[in-house]
């Protein structure tokens, strides 16, 4: 499958460049060793991260460099008349890129190990695992990036596609976060981090870093870091790679040569990218308007978005020409996304904010702030020259929610939370000086799973506070404006102090 003659040509044709890039790769990666006073283990870790970053950059640059011949008519004549099967041409080019990048990484790692082995313990299992992860990661990124680059029909559009597809996961995650923020849906709120982590680059970076940070350790250190790899993410990466292989067959092996230097109008190029980013932008804008109710200030944003849309059409079609269908399309999409958002908002997001998913081993944390209260813990009068700030912090393991101990407290907290949710969907005011945060976390890993912030209006009564104090921590802070003094109390102390 690999054409040895073409492989040799790829190497010999730019041998000076490859050697130069190799030297730069090693030098940049190992630059931390040149700084005096750095610990060997720290230098090694910085070197592995730097070599990872450079490898990822090369996995973008090499497909552009080595597959650009497809995007020029004249070079197509030369390369496609060569006595080499197209599949061989593709596999040989990707294999060469992989061997080149992996060689740079391997040489860097060898040097780094040589520099550190005297003063460190080397965990060979982590070393082999990180090499395997780097090999898989680089190969996957090369295949995926080559596929994306070949969606286009010319060099400029190919680079645009690479940038656009790289940012897709960020766009999806940001949109998910915006929607979940606006609709107060807790179980979507962690999607930002997880969404990013399904981008191929992030999968490679996170999993490689996780393994490689434990390759070396100072001799006098005891092992504490447990590297963990997400098999789910690696499976996703493999799926992406398989899809990219299939699409490469369509976009390279079966490619019509005459596409070179034409407008990039295949489905996965501008048509998909423009429509995707337009939709994402309109959803973000539409949902944001609904809550803010400040449509005047958002009209400017719609106009700006429309201008950006038109510019992208000009870049796509390579013509400065107005198409009425594009204007109609934009207006329709804007109305539909706004309409959908309005519909969802009017239906209180179909009761989704009232729920949150709970799993065994997790705990719920209610954290509530009520600021600017009166001494009797009612909402504050403006004339007062003091303020009382209240914070409530309650942790409840999910398997104990229905127990006698927590049942009453949960009922109080949930009533307030639902009040806050109803307030959110029925008023346009977006800020109150009372806030509540709900966190769901994994008690074993001590990691947040989901969270949500609420704006509340009604304060807790003293009876409610007494119930909550039985299962959690309540702190009150009294601030005197005149003397600029703070005083902190527990609930019992405060009630005694103010004789409530």
């Amino acid at each position: 499958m690999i054409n040895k003659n073409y492989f040799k040509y790829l190497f010999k044709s730019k041998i000076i460049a490859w050697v130069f890039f190799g030297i730069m790769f090693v030098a940049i990666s190992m630059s931390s060793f040149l700084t005096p006073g750095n610990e060997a283990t720290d230098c090694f870790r910085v070197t592995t991260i730097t070599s990872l970053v450079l490898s990822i950059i090369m996995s973008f640059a090499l497909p552009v460099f080595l597959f650009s011949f497809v995007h020029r008519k004249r070079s197509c004549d030369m390369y496609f008349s060569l006595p080499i099967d197209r599949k061989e041409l593709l596999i040989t080019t990707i294999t060469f890129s992989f061997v080149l990048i992996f060689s740079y990484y391997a040489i860097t790692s060898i040097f780094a190990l040589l520099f550190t082995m005297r003063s460190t313990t080397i965990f060979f299992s982590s070393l082999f695992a990180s090499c395997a992860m780097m090999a898989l990661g680089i190969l996957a990124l090369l295949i995926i990036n080559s596929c994306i680059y070949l969606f286009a029909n010319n060099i400029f559009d190919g680079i645009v596609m690479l940038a656009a597809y790289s940012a897709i996961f960020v766009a999806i995650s940001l949109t998910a976060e915006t929607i979940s923020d606006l609709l107060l849906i807790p179980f979507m709120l962690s999607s930002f981090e997880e969404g990013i982590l399904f981008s191929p680059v992030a999968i490679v970076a996170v999993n490689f870093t996780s393994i490689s940070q434990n390759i070396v350790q100072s001799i006098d250190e005891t092992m504490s870091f447990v590297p963990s790899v997400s098999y789910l993410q690696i499976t996703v990466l493999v799926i992406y790679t398989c899809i990219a292989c299939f699409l490469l067959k369509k976009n390279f092996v079966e490619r019509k040569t005459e596409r070179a230097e034409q407008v990039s109008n295949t489905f996965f190029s501008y048509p998909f990218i423009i429509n995707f980013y337009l939709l994402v932008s309109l959803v973000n804008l539409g949902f944001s308007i609904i809550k803010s109710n400040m449509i005047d200030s958002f009209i400017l944003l719609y106009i700006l978005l429309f201008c950006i849309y038109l510019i992208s059409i000009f870049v796509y079609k390579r013509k400065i020409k107005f198409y009425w269908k594009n204007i109609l399309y934009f207006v329709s999409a804007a109305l539909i996304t706004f309409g959908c958002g309005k519909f969802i908002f009017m239906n209180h997001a179909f009761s989704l904010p009232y729920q949150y998913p709970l799993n065994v081993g997790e705990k719920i944390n209610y954290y509530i702030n009520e600021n600017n209260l009166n001494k009797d813990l009612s909402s504050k009068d403006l004339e007062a020259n003091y303020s009382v700030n209240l914070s409530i912090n309650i942790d409840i393991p999910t398997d104990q929610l229905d127990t006698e101990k927590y049942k009453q407290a949960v009922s109080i907290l949930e009533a307030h939370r639902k009040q806050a949710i109803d307030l959110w969907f029925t008023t346009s005011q977006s800020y109150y000086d009372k806030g509540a945060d709900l966190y769901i976390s994994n008690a074993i890993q001590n990691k947040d799973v989901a969270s949500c912030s609420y704006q509340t209006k009604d304060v807790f009564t003293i009876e409610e506070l007494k119930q909550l104090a039985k299962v959690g921590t309540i702190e009150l802070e009294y601030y005197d404006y005149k003397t600029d003094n703070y005083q902190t109390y527990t609930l019992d102390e405060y009630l005694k102090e103010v004789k409530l």
Partner: protein
Amino acid sequence: MLKIDKLYKNFGNKEVLKGLDLEIQDESIFGLVGINGAGKSTLLRIIAGVYEPEQGCVLFNDCDTYDDPKIRKEIAFVSDEQFYPIGSTIKSVKQIYESMYDFSEAKYQKFLKMFELDEKDSILNLSKGNKRRVALLFALSIEPKLLLLDEAYDGLEPLIRYKFKQALADLIEDEHLTVIISSHNLKELEDICDSFGILEDGRMLEYGDLSDSKENINKYQIVFEKEIEKDAFNDFNILHLENEGRVYQLVAKGNQEEILSRIEAMHPILVDVLQVNFEELFIYELEGRSKSNDQ
């Protein structure tokens, strides 16, 4: 032998080749001519394996030139505009041909000298004509069995053209080379080609031996006593007919003696027979075709 069978090629909705059939014998120099946009470059690219046809196949020595990459080792394609990577010299470009073909260093040195090139020259700084020479240099150095020249013959100065013709003649004799040249310079092609093909409306309008075709088409200058109706010539296979008063110019296809005897039957005062050249053959064939389309 090169055999093209029912070749179709579209670019989007535009049909460029519509069921083209063609056979070119080994060791011939085939001149491919046609108007602009006829599909000459497209045809050459399909033969070279650059474009995939929608239907039909191109067989060279019974191997499909698109599906079988090995046969492309014997095919050299010189396009009208060549590609050279930035910063390349003749020596650096040589690498790809050395790697991928049966490259002959002896031929390379011979043609390097013949084309008066220096392999250390930066190709970017060469003139258009010299870049053409570089392309021809490599095309000949890989010892092809089929050489495709897409207007690559044009732009060579007369001395180099002469040397190139000599080189081709030697290669045809020694290496059994077949050459297909596309060009608009029909006078030049006439000197070098022994067979030809006129590409028109996606098909071969006419193709075959150049000398035979030229013999089969003649220009007859006829003078009558008085002006006669043009209908009198309807029985002839007319490619072109014009008159100025009683002086008629007839270009007709067919056996010269037979046509002469028919003209004599019309009692002319004077008849003169002139041979057509390749350019006239091309023009008259196209004219004749457009007339029959109008009818």
